[in-house]
């Protein structure tokens, strides 16, 4: 099944693609070849309801001639297909305009020596299917035994093993492999509403998925089932809250969403396109002084660990925000040159984002907050990176005197990202580790809650 799922195979194709494109007259070439084995399994009501398996390949090629660029890709790895693809790319370069900022990264930016990061768990490919089925069945059984009034919406396991090679005409050629595993369950329960309410038929669904690179690093089946059950219970009996201004607690799972908005706004691409609210803000306060954000690409077994980005530029550990002050934009070669800077190794985005924890436990933060909103999930597309405007739907808990009193639903939180990050009043010590954004929960001083 995995005869050719190895690094040499993809490296050979990536180098071959570079050589052919150079021979066809390309001035710069960058080639990426991937080979992936995917597996998915879903169990519902103790039956294996879905089983799928596949291997897929891809070969992508970006070439330039006189600073005119073209990108082509295919899933067919054969000499015929590669020849056609290279011809196409060379043709297409005649039509694009000269872009003086386009080019390969400077040679000295490219990744060199590597240390083992342990990103590939071979058992993803070798674990017998019966064992996988037994594990997923057991997860569902635990949930049902602990919450007999809940209905399972299915427990699932997904695994992937990806081998990918990158080569360019500066002589870079390397391959990496990595596995990812996701194990989780969804369940729902009846949530009867009062007779005069129009929300007849309401149910509440909750789920929890544990993700890791190694089977050993997954949360236990008990932990996953309990987290899913808790996520249903935290929605049962939900009410629409009153409109007003309140402090807001984001637990680690939703704090992650906030950081993703900040990361979008500091990408070099958003900045040079005038599509960020953080243009010209390096060296200024973009978060409260309590905030310290570090990108660590080299965490062993890290979900987003890597040595180099998709241009081959070395990724390194670096502070993005120090004491609330923005240290850098996250730059690819292109966006760096547009802004007169150097690539920061972020052509594939931020790797593992580490948010420095504070001193307070979740309970202490809630106690200090007193009355306000506890956000457990976020809905919608209402974060505008260009302006910082923020209006998103939330589900969560209404907190009074530091205690959650009832779930809330059908409400939105409104503010502006710039105000929100600078108004972080508390950072917890309750870090959730099993994510590529490793953050504690946090409290934002005040946001507009819209409900009744």
């Amino acid at each position, binding site marked *: 099944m995995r005869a050719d799922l190895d690094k040499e195979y993809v490296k050979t194709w990536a180098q071959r693609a570079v050589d052919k494109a150079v021979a066809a007259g390309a001035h710069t070439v960058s080639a990426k070849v991937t080979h992936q084995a995917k597996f998915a399994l879903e169990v*519902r009501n103790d039956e*294996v*309801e*879905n089983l*799928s*398996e*596949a*291997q*897929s*390949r891809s070969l992508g090629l970006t070439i330039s001639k006189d600073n005119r*660029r*073209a*990108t082509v*890709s*295919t*899933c067919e790895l054969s000499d015929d*297909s590669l020849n056609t693809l290279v011809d196409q790319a060379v043709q*297409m370069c005649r*039509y*694009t*305009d000269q872009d003086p900022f386009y080019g390969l990264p400077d040679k000295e930016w490219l990744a060199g020596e590597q240390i083992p990061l342990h990103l590939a768990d071979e058992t993803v490919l070798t674990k017998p299917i019966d064992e996988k089925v037994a594990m997923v069945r057991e997860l569902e059984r635990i949930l049902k035994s602990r919450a007999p009034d809940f*209905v399972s919406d*299915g427990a699932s396991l997904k695994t992937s093993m990806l081998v990918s090679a990158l080569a360019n005409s500066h002589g870079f050629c390397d391959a990496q492999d990595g596995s990812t595993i996701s194990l989780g369950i969804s369940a*729902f329960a009846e*949530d009867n509403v009062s007779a005069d309410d*129009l*929300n*007849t*038929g*309401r*149910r*509440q*669904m909750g789920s929890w998925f544990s993700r890791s690179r190694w089977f050993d690093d997954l949360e236990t089946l008990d932990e996953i089932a309990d987290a899913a059950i808790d996520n249903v219970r935290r*929605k049962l009996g939900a009410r*629409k809250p009153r409109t*007003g*201004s309140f402090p807001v607690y984001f637990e680690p799972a939703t704090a992650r969403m906030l950081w993703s908005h900040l990361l979008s706004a500091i990408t070099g691409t958003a900045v040079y*396109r*005038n*599509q960020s609210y953080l243009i010209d803000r390096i060296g200024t306060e973009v978060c409260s002084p309590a905030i310290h954000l570090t990108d660590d690409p080299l965490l062993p077994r890290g979900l987003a660990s890597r040595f180099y980005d998709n241009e081959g530029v070395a990724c390194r550990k670096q502070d993005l925000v120090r004491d609330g002050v923005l240290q850098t934009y996250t730059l690819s070669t292109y966006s760096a040159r547009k802004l007169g800077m150097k690539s920061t190794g972020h052509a594939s985005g931020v790797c593992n984002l580490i948010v420095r924890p504070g001193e307070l436990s979740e309970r202490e933060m809630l106690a200090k907050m007193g009355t306000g909103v506890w956000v457990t999930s976020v*809905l*919608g597309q*209402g974060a*505008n990176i*260009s*302006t910082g*405007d*923020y*209006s*998103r739907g939330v*589900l969560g808990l209404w907190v009074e005197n530091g205690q959650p009193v009832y779930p809330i*639903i*059908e*409400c*939105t*939180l*409104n*503010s502006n990202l710039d105000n929100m990050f600078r108004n972080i009043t508390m950072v917890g010590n309750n870090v959730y580790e099993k994510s590529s954004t490793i953050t504690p929960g946090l409290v934002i001083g005040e946001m*507009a809650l*819209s409900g009744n």
Partner: protein
Amino acid sequence: MTMDQFRLTPARINRILAAAMSRSGDFADIFCEQSRFNSLAMEEGILKSAAMDIEQGIGVRVVKGEKTGYAYSEVFDEAALLEAARSAASIADGNARPGTVEVKPYKRPDYYPVSDPAAERSLDSKIQLINIADAHARKVSKKVTKVQVTMVDHQAVILMADTRGRLVTDTRPMLRFTVTVVAEENGERQQARSGDGGRVGISYLTRERLESFAENAVREAELLLSARQAPAGMLPVILGPGDSGILLHEAIGHPLEADFNRKGSSAYTGRMNEMVADPQCTIIDDGTVPNERGSINFDDELNDSLKTVLIEEGRLTSYMYDEISARYFERESSGNGRRESYKFQPLPRMRTTYMLPGKYSHDEIIASTQRGVFCKTFKGGQVDISSGNFIFVPSEAWLVENGKLTSPIKNFSLIGNGPDVLSKVTMVADDFRMSAGIWTCGKGQQVPVGVGLPTIKISEMTVGGQKG
């Protein structure tokens, strides 16, 4: 001809289907796809990138009751396809003697005849169109500081065969053109986007249309520059024609997908034939609208594409079925089984979802409103199908005061509960319009869809602004 592309013959198809049925599945199908995507992007007045992607593969599916086995191969030799078939077959646990399956071509209508697919046009001719839109966006307003124009076309050649003996082929064209602008004034910056597309040929992109995309994007960005913060709390909401159909997609569409109802997780489970909306509401999901982005000649499990009435005068009349849920509910599929590509199994998905027009005029509806909001265009939406809690996010919107649109407003979402909001539709106008062909629906996999709506008034829902 299509068979050759996948190195298939009727005999080979029969052998693959027989292997798929070797463990006593209820039925099996194969889905063969050869796709070509082209995209061009202009930014800062230069054509920065041209890209082309070719994807091809064959997926084999075996179904037994509610259970599905799936595998695909990107290699077309028979050994690989038989291995995929056996892998998919393992979902069923019996042992059948491989029977014989004879597939025959199955007739179907053509809802998107296109004589000039963009996929077959020269780069030169496409670049000319991009230049028109780009130049116009810059000309319309001095406040414009950045313009991005993208043109994406996709052509998929599909062949499907199943153990019912059906064999179908189809060519599915798709075109999408988008203009994004950034406008700036007094240190403030706003971004807006406009575009259109569908299963249309390149001649759809007339100069008039291209210029209107540019004008709409610029006008919206300028409006946002002068917009005020939106109010917060429960208010009457008027949804303009076209784009606002996203309300239907989120509030009622997703929860009526039959997989959720088969599993019992939807807020509408067990409510067939009940009143779930105001009697002014008749809501349809339709795969047969000519050249629409959400149209299909047949769905991705070889069932006829249909026009399905979901809600008739407020009463729930049908879910959207794929083959598995249709068999579960012992009825015919409504032709909603769709997939993103050969890499995915089909699921119940929407096609083009719209509401029929009513008796009021647009102006009457605005005039009837003392204080509320009017929403014209949208960015997107999301729903929790179990609670019915849904959200959608406007881009161009206005405050309504004393029966008139007074000032543009920004930075808010609309949130509510599907059954609740649809019961509060108090007025439906006669100005039905289909939205521009730009929508993509995500449910673990992406499929193109359409929406449409006349102007409607919702007596109250939560407006997520910040001014109390």
